[in-house]
């Protein structure tokens, strides 16, 4: 087992004041189980404090640190150096921001703009079933919950939306569809008509080309394509 790796990171920079982009190369040594967020921090501390990148929880639960590494969208916080070397077969990595929203600086994109698509599908219960406010929980059997619980694990990291071969302009994107499907499968939601209208709208599920890239790249290993397929085959129309 190799202890240290000599890495070359080619990182896409963007300066908003000058509206200028360029590739910048950083060479550094990193231990085998450092994560890419640790590597970015090392660059900030030791080489270049101006490199801007985003993260929050750094344990793959918030989806803030999504970047493209050698073309693949992933969470920088869970990519270990030794795994990256094994996965990509190289110690040279090209790192770019995910192209799902306008750039702010370097690797940071305006996630709030990307989120607008998720918010447009109303990620909450629009019209709750009747026993609300009677001081009781709804009874949902594990069998019913199991049908859609995987989809509730989505963290909106937008890796799927990045990998998706459909246009971002016309398609809500896999994660927004997932948020919509969760509430269609949730027995507590009564506003099914409104939800179906959204799901099958101009920007809805028929924009999907079934490449299944979403399932392939999902860091949470959610089979996103499965839920989109359910929508396409009309599973939710009663």
């Amino acid at each position, binding site marked *: 087992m190799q*202890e240290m790796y000599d890495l070359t990171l080619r990182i896409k920079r963007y300066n*908003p*004041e000058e509206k200028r982009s360029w590739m910048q190369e950083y060479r550094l040594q990193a*231990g*085998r*189980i*450092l*994560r890419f967020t*640790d590597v970015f921090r090392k660059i*900030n*501390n030791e080489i270049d*404090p*101006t490199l*801007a*990148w*985003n993260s*929050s*929880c*750094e*344990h*793959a*639960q*918030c*989806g*803030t640190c999504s970047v493209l590494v050698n073309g693949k969208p992933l969470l920088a916080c*869970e990519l*270990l150096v*030794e795994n990256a070397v094994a996965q990509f077969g190289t110690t040279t990595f090209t790192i770019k921001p995910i192209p799902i929203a306008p750039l*702010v*600086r370097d690797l*940071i994109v*305006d*996630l*709030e703009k990307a*989120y607008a698509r998720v*918010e447009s599908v*109303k*990620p*909450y*219960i629009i019209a*709750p079933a009747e026993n*609300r406010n009677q*001081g*009781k*929980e*709804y*009874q*949902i*059997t*594990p069998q*019913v*919950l199991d049908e859609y*619980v995987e989809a*509730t*694990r989505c*963290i*909106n990291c937008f890796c799927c939306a990045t990998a998706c071969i459909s246009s971002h302009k016309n398609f809500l994107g896999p994660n927004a569809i997932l948020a919509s499907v969760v509430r269609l499968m*949730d027995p*507590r*939601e009564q506003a099914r008509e409104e939800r179906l209208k959204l799901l099958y709208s101009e920007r809805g599920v028929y924009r999907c080309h079934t490449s299944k890239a979403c399932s392939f790249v999902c860091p949470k290993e959610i089979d996103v394509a499965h839920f989109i397929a359910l929508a396409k085959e009309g599973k939710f129309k009663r």
Partner: protein
Amino acid sequence: MKEKLRIGSTQYCDVLVIGAGGAGLRCAAEVFQRKPGARVLAVTKVAHPQKSHTTTAQGGLAAVDPKDPIDKPIYHMFDTWKGSDCMADQNIVRKIVDAAWEEIIWLENRGMHLSRDIDGKLSKRTFGGHTVNFGEASAFRAVYEADRTGKGIIDTLWGEALRGGIVFLNQSMATELLFSKGRCVGAVIFRQKEGEFVAVLAKATVLGMGGSGQVFRVTTNCRQNTGDYLVLALEAGLPVMDPEAVQFHPTGIVGPGILASETLRSVGGILRNKDLEAFMVRYAPKMKDLAPRDLVSRAIETEIREGRGIMNPDHKIEHVWIDVRHLPDHVHDVQIPEVASFFRKFVNIDPKKELCPIRPSNHYHMGGIPTDEFGRVEKGPGEVIPGLFAVGECAAASFHGFNRLGTNSLLELITMGKFAGEKAVELIGEKSEEMPAGAGERTFAQFSGFLGAAGKASLGEIRQTMQAVMTEKVGVFRVAKGLQEAISKLRELQEKTGEITISGKSLTMNQELIQRWELKNLLAVSMVIAQGALNRRDSRGGHFREDYPERHEEFNDHTLTYMTEFGKVNFGKRPVDMSLFEAKGANYEKFGMIERKY
């Protein structure tokens, strides 16, 4: 660049929520429920509210189900009181415990995907320190959403806030609270993406800004938890209560410090040392691996100090093991899939087959901005600042005293958020305040100082040195000499910050500038933690003094610390509310100054 250091625009709202995590969003949802159409503006330091640190909470949410034939609220109150090492305020304990189940139903009815039993009812599990019949047996008291309960809460509350019509200022931070005639009227907000300062004037300002974990080298906390809120308060002349009450989670994953939830132990995980001995039986004969966090943390540190730890070659940090190899596959796959995956992902270890390396990791700040039972910020005991609230981890009401029980933090977030929302609504009718004179001056003086400073000091190096000092000398074990050394080192580091050059002078998404501002906050927070720890010459809960290993009566009050100038700390006291004890009702004797043994 100096011309941009000004208030670019002013926004008006009814309720300004600073920090859009579990507590802040629950407060916002309560405001909308009571006053539909209210203008609520929420500021978050992260890229989007769904990225808040609450989302990483794994284990569960403690609440006594009134239908439970065995469990009772009084047991939950007792566990919280005992766990707090007799430093929780009993009026708060009672209020939160009594409101708990209603909050579970509130969340469930609004779409939280809580885990279910075979009959479709909410599943419950047991957690360290939670018992029935005053310590007799483990209580099944925590409802949960698999091992992502915090995410379930955030998703639900974000949805409710959206439905209510909330306006978010994302990737933004509060740099200064605004006051007019003794009343809080809003805050100066810096919008990082736009590089713009905004004044927000509000009838009620609610701080829900999370924790301060970045003060330490190994922490479970997110990157943004730099204790900014404590400095907002200190700079406004307000106190921080019990800063020395810091919790170290016993089972952080070696290296990044990522939390391996207590769930691992509650489903049967066993802690082992170098010799593979299950050592917890020597420290807590009854509760063993399920003993409260501070006891387990000290047990692990003791094992390591006495040479029974294991050195990790990559991170050069000693650790012990947690063993989950004996658990059946369905436990791994169904009950702990996300926690187990952390070991696979972050240290390349398969917990089904291998021992997992863990060590104590900074986890939670019990101390915070002092409030009353409605989350109203207090300047001194009983002295409320009108218009200003603090809820969640950034506040201290205090529900946790000197040690927080697992699953009690999520409960505190949502209940205190709700209580603050109830009170904030009452202020909406009041007339709007004018912008106070001099708004932003302190902020601009600081920022122009950051941008204008020149020298060879390294921001990253100062921050790392501070984290190392705090971890080594103000961590799980503390002693007077070490604390004094830490305090003088912090002064030295503070001096050095004057020599940090910020290479990029832009205000727009200038990460280096943000980190410089955070460093100011981290050093100030470190200083009040270290001073508070030195001042408290006794041991209780998360605060352990090797030179004063017992609890002492003269320290039975909360510590209040004030610091308007770096390093000059003034102390005050706030008595602990003992209303459950004083009421002399059934079992009142359980709420006296009881021993904390498990």
